[in-house]
């Protein structure tokens, strides 16, 4: 009990504090338009960098980053000396690894940051943007390779094979090492969530037919392949063939051809990921939740008093968490707060950052029941409070000046856990009905049947109690 109070106090204190601070900054903002944002970009960057590097886990990423830079520089000089386009195309994959390491750093930075005033949704989107930027940059590099290759077809320069194979193996080893030893959350998520690339599809198709011959391989071959490992292996394979053909037959054109092949594979691998992250950036509704959302919205539109649901916007903030806003038009005589609560309750399971605007036509026209509605809030405390209390005088469950006091049985005794609710809920439907019956008068006939909607949800509530299904469930991405 004490603990609860302490937690409670602390939390509420910080909330208030934050609010105060915010208003302070607002006030400040009006007086000093350029309040201390003019710290140099470099200084800010170093500050954030220190924040990230204070975590031990990011040291590894930094180490790999340094190694990657060295390796890339080495490979680029070899590309120059061998004059091989294919090796250059393969080196771009190493550069992509550097980008993915940066993304990884950003992701660990994001996890440390709290939403600020200007980035009110938090910093999760930085991850998405960096995934998008790195995939797009690699594709642009591949486009450049394609262009150069077309030019090379006109006049094929000679390719020296001296460092070709060495470069290939260094790059392959390094890429695989980076991929397998650094846990890259954003890219792992995107590569799993995005649709399969054509390279993956072909490998899956081949391995399926291979598994038809050798069933023992199925556990190894049938699961979805990691696209990055796949493209690294395929690129190394292409380079190996190039080396062989140039050594044996002096077919220099093979180099250009395999550069094009690697560039095309890069396109194929990166395109689905950039589409996925681009769609997140475009604030689109992810297509896999549309079914669930539709179901919820249908449920919402059948709630009592709801006339229509419109302007629904749902989109993902980062990778995973949904945000959304929706306008609900209700009947003139419906209780706004109750509808709001129910709509929020329905949608909250799926959409963690939700805003619902209740809309009424002709609200300024006087309504019969409008005078009765405040009374409804009184009777509310009747059904919420345990059975003994009557009238507004005893403190309801959540009175303003005694926060959390009435929660204690809920917290401490697990046997009684859901008693107040189940009791209250058992009573719940009848006071509602009763209240409506006495209050509405005219509209009652129309109303009575639709109370059903609420009742069903009440009966569902106790089962869900304690299972805590809320945002954490939706938030598949961040554990």
């Amino acid at each position, binding site marked *: 009990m004490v603990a609860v109070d302490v*937690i*409670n106090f602390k939390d509420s204190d910080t909330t208030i504090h934050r609010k105060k601070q915010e208003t302070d900054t607002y006030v400040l903002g009006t007086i000093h338009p350029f309040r201390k944002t003019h710290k140099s970009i470099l200084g800010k960057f170093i500050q954030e960098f220190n924040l990230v590097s204070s975590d031990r886990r990011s040291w590894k990423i930094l180490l790999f980053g340094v190694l990657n830079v060295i390796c890339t520089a080495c490979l680029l000089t070899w590309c120059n000396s061998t004059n091989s386009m294919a090796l250059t195309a393969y080196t771009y994959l190493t550069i992509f690894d550097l980008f993915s390491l940066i993304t990884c750093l950003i992701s660990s930075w994001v996890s440390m940051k709290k939403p600020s005033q200007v980035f009110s949704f938090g910093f999760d989107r930085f991850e998405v943007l960096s995934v998008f930027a790195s995939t797009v940059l690699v594709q642009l590099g591949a486009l450049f390779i394609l*262009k150069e290759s077309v030019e090379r077809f006109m006049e094929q320069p000679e390719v020296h094979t001296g460092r070709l194979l060495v470069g290939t193996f260094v790059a392959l080893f390094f890429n695989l090492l980076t991929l397998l030893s650094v846990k890259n959350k954003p890219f792992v998520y995107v590569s799993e969530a995005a649709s399969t690339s054509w390279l993956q599809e072909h490998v899956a198709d081949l391995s399926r037919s291979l598994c038809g011959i050798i069933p023992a391989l199925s556990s190894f071959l049938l699961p979805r392949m990691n696209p990055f490992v796949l493209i690294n292996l395929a690129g190394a394979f292409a380079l190996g063939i190039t080396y062989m053909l140039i050594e044996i037959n002096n077919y220099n054109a093979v180099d250009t051809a395999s550069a094009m092949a690697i560039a095309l594979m890069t396109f194929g691998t990166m395109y689905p990921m950039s589409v996925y992250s681009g769609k997140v*950036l475009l604030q689109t509704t992810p297509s896999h939740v549309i079914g669930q959302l539709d179901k919820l919205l249908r449920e919402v539109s059948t709630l009592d008093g709801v006339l229509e649901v419109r302007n629904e916007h749902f989109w993902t903030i980062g990778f995973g968490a949904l945000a959304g806003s929706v306008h609900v038009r209700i009947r003139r005589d419906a209780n706004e707060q109750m509808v709001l609560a129910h709509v929020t309750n329905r949608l909250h399971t799926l959409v963690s950052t939700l805003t619902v605007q209740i809309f009424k036509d002709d*609200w300024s026209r006087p309504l019969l029941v409008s005078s009765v509605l405040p009374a409804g*809030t009184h009777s509310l405390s009747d059904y919420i409070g345990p059975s003994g209390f009557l009238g507004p005088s005893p403190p309801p469950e959540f009175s303003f000046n005694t926060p959390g006091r009435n929660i204690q049985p809920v917290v401490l005794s697990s046997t009684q856990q859901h008693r107040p609710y189940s009791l209250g809920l058992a009573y719940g439907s009848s006071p509602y009905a009763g209240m409506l019956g006495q209050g509405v008068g005219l509209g009652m006939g129309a109303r009575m049947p639709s109370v059903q909607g609420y009742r069903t949800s009440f009966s569902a509530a106790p089962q869900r*109690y304690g299972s805590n299904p809320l945002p954490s469930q939706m938030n598949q991405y961040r554990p």
Partner: protein
Amino acid sequence: MDDKYSSNVISGGKLGRVEVPNARLTRYIVLLLLTKLLKALGIFESYDLLKVVHVVQFLFILKLGCAVILLFFQKPFSSGKMVAKRQWIRILKHAVISSVISLLGFFGLTLCGPLRTLLLFEHSDLVVISLLSVLFTNSGGGPSKTRGAAFFIIAVVCLLLFDNDDLMAKMAEHPEGHHDSALTHALYTGISFLGVADHKGGVVLLVLALCLKVAFHTHSRKLSVEIGGAKRLYALSNLVSSVVLLPWVIVLSSTTESKVESWSSLALPFALIVFSVMVLDFYVESICTAKLEALRCARYGSACLFLSGLLLANFWTHPLTDQLRAMSKSGQQASTEHVLSGGVLVSACFFVMADSILSSPSEKGQKGTLVGYSPEGMPLYNLMGDALQHSSQSLPRFIKDSLKQILEEYDSRQIFYFLCLNLAFTFVELFYGVWTNSLGLISDGFHMLFDCSALVLGLFAALMTRWKATRIYSYGYGRVEILSGFINGLFLMVIAFFVFVESVSRLIDPPNINTVMLAPVSVGGLLVNLVGICAFSHAHSHGASKGSCSSHEHGHSHHGHGTGEHSHTHGHSHGGHSHSHGHGHSHSPGGRSMNANMRGVFLHVLADTMGSVGVIISTVLISQFGWLIADPICSLFIATLIFLSVIPLLKDACEVLLLRTPPEQEKDLNFALEKVQKIEGVLSYRDPHFWRHSASVIAGTIHLQIMSDVVEQRVIQQVTAVLKDAGVNNLTVQVEKEAYFQHMSGLSTGFHEVLAMTQQMESMKYYKDGTCIM
């Protein structure tokens, strides 16, 4: 795993077509294989014959022989119903086209030799049709078919590029006047016009002939039904075509002297060819197609044909087979035969694989959507939706519609016109480069094409921006523009990076630059880009110059570099985006529109312009003073400038994409929020989110806590008005009273939520007290 698959009825094939046991089909398969072997032999033989007999004469003899045999077997005149006059005309057409195709095929044979002809020309119709359907429709039938198509293309490319045919030497000494007739002469000049070696020309010719053959076969199917069977049509058509060819043959043999010593010695090989290539193959193929499936027939047939072709090619010049060859030629000819090379072997392997993949039955005929599972656990598919969706427009109509859309709006129109101009210039350059065989021009042309891709992206984004909002894009497509601006910014960064790397390597080792072609090209490019700048700076000052007119555009420079004749032009300049945020911008929302897309396109054009200017400058410097170092320094300068000028664009686009509170609205919003708090009855607000969705939409959500006795709708109205003044035009306000939290705590569930609710109410209380005191 195996068990699991076979238990599935659909994939286990139990519901599929019934397969005839292999044992009964073995004789047909053996027959087919033997026929194909004979056919390969016949084609090798005919290659030898074609060295002495003219193509037209050869074809005439084949057709005539075939017609005689078929008349004997088929009796097309005495059996079946009479052929009408109209049908005779169609048969005539059929015959003419078929003889043209065979002419092309046999001419290809003389060019590339028998093995390559077998590989290229003797594909079954089914294979080619499924290849084309993979290439030109998106319902190709899964990744395996795509792989087959890729193999096919690789095989053709292998033949084109990696086949070091020894015959090229022989063809090179082929004098132009040597050609026997006008036909072959025309074909030769056509091929030499393409600028490829003869045997490569043959490859192209054979591929074309293959496509024609397939189209012709599918087209003539209806006629064969009308005539009364494919065999009757074949017989009649052969007869007619031999009649058609007759006058030509007479003219030919009277005007040119024949190289044949004695026709009688050629009778036996001709008979063999007529029998194996024309008659036996036709009959056996039709029988096997009826008995086996067409797909299997195609698979076995082509595989066998290619393999026997490979075998024969290996042994054809061998002394052992000399007895077999009817035409024993003098030994010196053998050295210049079309021999086996690595490229041919590889491409034969690829052809075999491609054929076997493309002719394998496709796994799923139609793509259905999974609906659910039947009570037995079988998956249920819905095939309707797909069929309904496939109401694709015809191509011209699509082009017309999209053109209309493009021309409707100012931005896309500008981009489109400029793109056309740019492409025209590029193609003129490319064409002239090919004409004069100047590698520098060609590579510069490709460079321009590379740059054009940014324009295409911009055009596409400008088009998409106007699409209607859908379920998935619930706010509309306006944000595409910003994403495209971002991508264009990244594009410029990549260009800057490459220019930088290039110029650093040039700084270390400045190459000689041939300045002959550079000046006119860069002047042309400059003119084109100046037009673009005029067009876009208008749009630009409309769009992106924020209040302060796009003051100074300090452009720059360029870099032109070229080994030998190469000249790449890049350039960049610093557009006039003077960001005067916060300084006296008008308070009316939507007064200015930030169009990232147009900014990106404009930066590209500016970069190109300055590139051309730079090329001109460095050309002058190099040719006048011989300062070779001027070029890399120039490039370095440009790279830096591109980089610097892109940063503002990227920064702005990033801010929008990251859902940052729009910086230029920040102050207004803070004012507005203060005002909101002062609205009567409002206790506090939480979770204010404001972000720019696209150029014209600023969206926002806010939660308000109000006192219980205030009407919510009035508060919503007031808040909406206040925030609209601050520029937010897509707002959602959630108004919460004390009752809401009570309802929520009644409905809701976890302990944490209850705690959070309590805190919310606590804060409400706090503010209530605060306002009371005040």
